[in-house]
């Protein structure tokens, strides 16, 4: 077996940071010299993410070539409103309604390796190759590895392989969006150094020993570090005369990126000169300076009522979770999770139910949009710059599972759903948040040098499939960027459009999901204590 395509995912990676790290900087040199060489000789484009630029929907679009209205993944957490009760669950690999590239390549006779991608567990049964999923705690990694025996193989053959160091740790990950003290922030960044080294070692081992046709690994420390340490990475924010702490933070961030450069060099070298290499991020990054407490705003506007606590342990746990805890009988519009940036409108399914009568839905929604766009911060600036209606931005069979409205904040921040006042405040220090523009880069045989027009996130999948020499399914929503390649190579490798991808078997649109949606409720209440 020979690897044809190497795909390196860099969660949340942005040119804002990358451009500086790949060029000579005073006192720092070139932090990522190998990547600098690839970028100088390769193709680059900004990559426009999903309408809510968030890890689960965006990586799922990269894995399927389809937008969220088709693949059905919108958030970490999935909820369904059943007239008086809202049920919560987590998305997992079975919730992806479209065929993943892992399955597509496998049924085309190829093997894959998918390391650290979200929603890859449970793995589709038809996958040929290795899936070591991301976002799974160490205790559950063995059972969620595909094939099951691959876990022991990695453990037996990779010196220093440590699932605890490698895997998602909820106690640590919950800090991503929390405000940390200085020492904790430094520890938070340092925690990701050995984690990433573990993923690199697994990737190195798989590439060296299995050489799957499609070798894919995702490094997610980029995202996690940038959330907390953005002020030390953004060239516009890092002070000319930093304090000792600020310099330490900058140094540890650079250490992380130096390591990533080393991983990239080793993997690209190991893959060999005949292999096309692609890099993509699920979204970019930028600074957020403001906090919108959206449910407080909706309460102030009369759309929402907070739940009354009865003081029980369950109620206290529920209160502590940063997860909408409301009096549903008196709530007509609310936000479920900070990561969704979405507003759900509660529609009364039948007479007597709480919520907005269906006949009044459209007018209700338009009035709400108007009120949201009118919100101003203390400086008189608009806080919400766009409100996305789901039928327009999430077309497809799973459109109705999207929030009715998705908010775009002026600083691209994520909303808070905490029950605190006032509704809009300024942050003490800028924090990192997701920007819709990520990165998409290529290098290797046939790749042309230069920056080209921005591409869409679904283009990544079509490009990977084409690079593997496979027909691009006719239901893919993206296109292969011709301007990534030399005219000669492009002429020799025309895009062939093939049959549609195969639908994933286990997912059905919302109306059939009543009972399934209700599962896992006990844990959800406690679970969200880990999530935020």
């Amino acid at each position, binding site marked *: 077996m020979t690897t044809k395509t190497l795909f390196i995912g860099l969660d949340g990676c942005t040119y804002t940071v990358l451009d500086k790290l790949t060029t000579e900087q005073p006192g720092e040199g070139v932090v990522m010299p190998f990547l600098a060489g690839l970028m100088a000789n390769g193709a680059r484009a900004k990559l426009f993410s999903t309408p809510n630029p968030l890890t689960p929907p965006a990586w799922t679009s990269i894995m399927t070539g389809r937008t969220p209205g088709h693949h059905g993944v919108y958030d970490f957490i999935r909820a369904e409103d059943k007239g008086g009760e809202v*049920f919560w669950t*987590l998305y*997992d690999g*079975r919730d992806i309604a479209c065929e993943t590239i892992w399955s597509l390549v496998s049924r085309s006779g190829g093997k894959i390796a998918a390391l650290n991608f979200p929603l890859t567990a*449970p793995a589709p049964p038809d996958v040929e190759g290795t899936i070591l999923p991301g976002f799974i*705690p*160490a*205790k*559950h*990694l*063995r*059972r*969620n590895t595909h094939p099951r025996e691959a876990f022991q193989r990695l453990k037996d053959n990779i010196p220093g392989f440590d*699932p605890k160091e490698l895997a998602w740790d*909820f106690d640590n990950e919950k800090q991503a969006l929390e405000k940390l003290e200085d020492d904790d922030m430094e520890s938070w960044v340092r925690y990701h150094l050995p984690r990433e080294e573990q993923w690199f070692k697994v990737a190195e081992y798989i590439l060296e020993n299995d050489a799957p046709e499609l070798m894919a690994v995702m490094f997610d420390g980029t995202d996690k570090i940038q959330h907390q340490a953005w002020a030390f990475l953004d060239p516009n924010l890092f002070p000319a005369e930093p304090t000792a702490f600020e310099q330490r933070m900058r140094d540890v961030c650079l250490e992380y990126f130096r390591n990533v450069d080393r991983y990239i060099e080793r993997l690209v070298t190991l893959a060999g000169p005949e292999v096309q290499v692609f890099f993509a991020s699920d979204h970019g990054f930028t600074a957020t300076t403001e906090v919108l407490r959206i449910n407080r705003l909706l309460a102030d506007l009369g759309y929402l009522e907070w739940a009354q606590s009865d003081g029980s342990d*369950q109620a206290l746990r529920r209160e502590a979770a940063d997860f909408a805890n409301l009096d549903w009988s008196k709530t007509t519009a609310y936000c479920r999770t900070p990561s969704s940036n979405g507003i759900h409108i509660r529609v009364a399914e039948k007479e007597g139910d709480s919520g907005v009568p269906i006949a009044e839905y459209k007018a209700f929604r338009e009035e709400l949009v108007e009120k949201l766009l009118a919100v101003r911060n203390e400086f008189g600036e608009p806080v919400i710059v766009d409100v996305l209606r789901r039928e327009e931005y999430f077309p497809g069979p799973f459109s109705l599972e999207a929030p009715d409205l998705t908010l775009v904040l002026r600083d691209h921040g994520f909303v808070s759903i905490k029950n605190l006042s006032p509704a809009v405040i300024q942050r003490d220090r800028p924090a990192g948040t997701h920007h819709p523009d990520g990165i998409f880069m290529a290098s290797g045989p046939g790749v042309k040098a230069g920056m080209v027009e921005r591409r869409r996130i679904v283009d990544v999948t079509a490009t990977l499939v084409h690079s593997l020499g496979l027909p691009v399914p006719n239901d893919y929503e993206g296109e292969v960027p011709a301007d990534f390649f030399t005219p000669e190579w492009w002429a020799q490798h025309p895009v062939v459009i093939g049959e549609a991808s195969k639908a994933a078997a*286990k997912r059905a649109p919302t109306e059939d999901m009543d*009972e*399934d949606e*209700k*599962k*896992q*409720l*006990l*844990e*959800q*209440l*406690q*679970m969200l*204590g*880990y999530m935020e």
Partner: protein
Amino acid sequence: MTTAATPVADLEAKLIALLEDFTQDWDTAPDGGITGESRLLADLGFESIDVIQFMVAVEEDIAGRKLPFNDLVMKDGRYVDDLSVRQMAVFLTKEGC
């Protein structure tokens, strides 16, 4: 003389085998092993994420389909505090597993 296993006893055995596999990489092991009386949180040290993962494991390895676990974990509109292996086996029997 042997007695034919009841569906509940059979499922209980499957659940115990699954739990033994499920917890093999955990630092803690329950005193006296896993039995039908073992409770997920109190005896096996489950946390919320473990319960989620275990329900997925039951669906994948025993049921072969998604299950309405809400019927098991909700009583009178509130969440139960814990679950025993036997309660799960009874639930699976009712679900025709």
